[in-house]
């Protein structure tokens, strides 16, 4: 799923500083699952913003809604009737949400309340880790299910570099060295030879480097 973090309150407050009636929109998709933009977080943000405003002696009207997904026009359609009643709308979805909203409702101002971070999952409750970089050409099968593109700090295809120490990456003692994991897994499985062959330079055209991407499925497209 997409993993995000909520922006600091000060940043969100700055966005809405001159607005008195806002709508906070949550999303029931990834951001609910990663505990950043579901009903609960919408309530917390709403209350926090109201507290901040009350402290300034100003009032703030906040309405809350959490829709199924902010990345589907049909769900976005649900707020059509009231969306322009607000001075601004804060989206707690990933970066997709406020953009879809902006496209659907060009008159309204949409602010992102979260920083969209990566594709990953929860390794335990409250801890999410990156697993995929969305490079467009999956190679994890060469590395026994461990992706060096997303998980090596340098995206090395022929790692590990000289900074690998005791299983951790040179950038932090808390970041595991994926190449250490790849090597150990290969060794355990007696397939170290796989790593002796040279992996040529990756084709990054399928990644973001190739420009904004689009996926067209002819058999589905109407």
């Amino acid at each position, binding site marked *: 799923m997409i993993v995000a973090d909520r922006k*600091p309150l*000060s940043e969100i407050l700055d966005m809405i500083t001159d607005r008195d009636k806002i709508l906070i929109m949550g999303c029931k998709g990834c951001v609910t699952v990663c505990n950043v933009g579901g009903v*609960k977080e919408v309530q*917390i943000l709403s*209350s926090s913003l109201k*507290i901040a405003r*009350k402290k300034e*002696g100003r009032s703030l009207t906040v309405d809350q809604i959490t829709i199924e997904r902010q990345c589907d026009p049909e769900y976005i359609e649900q707020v059509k009737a009231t969306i322009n009643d607000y001075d601004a709308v804060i989206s707690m979805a990933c970066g997709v949400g406020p953009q879809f909203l902006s496209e659907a409702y060009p008159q309204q101002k949409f602010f992102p309340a979260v920083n969209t971070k990566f594709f990953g999952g929860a390794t335990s409750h409250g801890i999410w880790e990156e697993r995929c970089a969305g490079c467009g050409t999956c190679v994890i099968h060469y590395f026994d299910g461990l992706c060096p593109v997303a998980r090596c700090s340098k995206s090395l295809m022929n790692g590990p570099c000289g900074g690998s120490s005791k299983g951790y990456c040179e950038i932090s003692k808390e970041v595991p060295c994926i190449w250490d994991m790849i090597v150990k897994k290969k060794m355990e499985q007696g397939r170290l030879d796989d790593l002796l062959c040279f992996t040529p330079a990756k084709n990054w055209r399928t990644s973001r480097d190739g420009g904004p991407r689009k996926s067209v499925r002819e058999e589905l497209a109407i």
Partner: protein
Amino acid sequence: MNHDFEPQIIAFCCKYCAYAAADLAGSMRLNYPSNIKIIQVPCTGRVDIIHLLRAIEDGADGVYVAGCMEGDCHFVCGNIKTRKKVEYVKKTLSELGIEPERVEMFNLSSAMGPRFAEIANQMGERIRNLGPSPLNIKQAA
């Protein structure tokens, strides 16, 4: 410090320990400030971040959660989970420029009537020293 200031404080107390301790404090006739109002919850684990924020938003000058002793939670670990929620709310308040000390977590057993009164007095005193919630000052002005 304003001597006329009577803070409003909400205490979320778990049924098995803190609420029972509050009853015991009463049966021991121990005095504490009358503007502490207890809301009973089955376990402090039921206390949600939004409950604490809502209290501040509504105008509470202080809010605290009182649960069982750590390790003795009637529901295993509700108090430990909620201690972290209290920390989150403290952080949120700091971000908003409100004294995080207005929110606190306490642990006590059902047998600790005097401790309940002590906590209530301590929290009352702390909030009195902090003065009214910034939310209330602006409103009054």
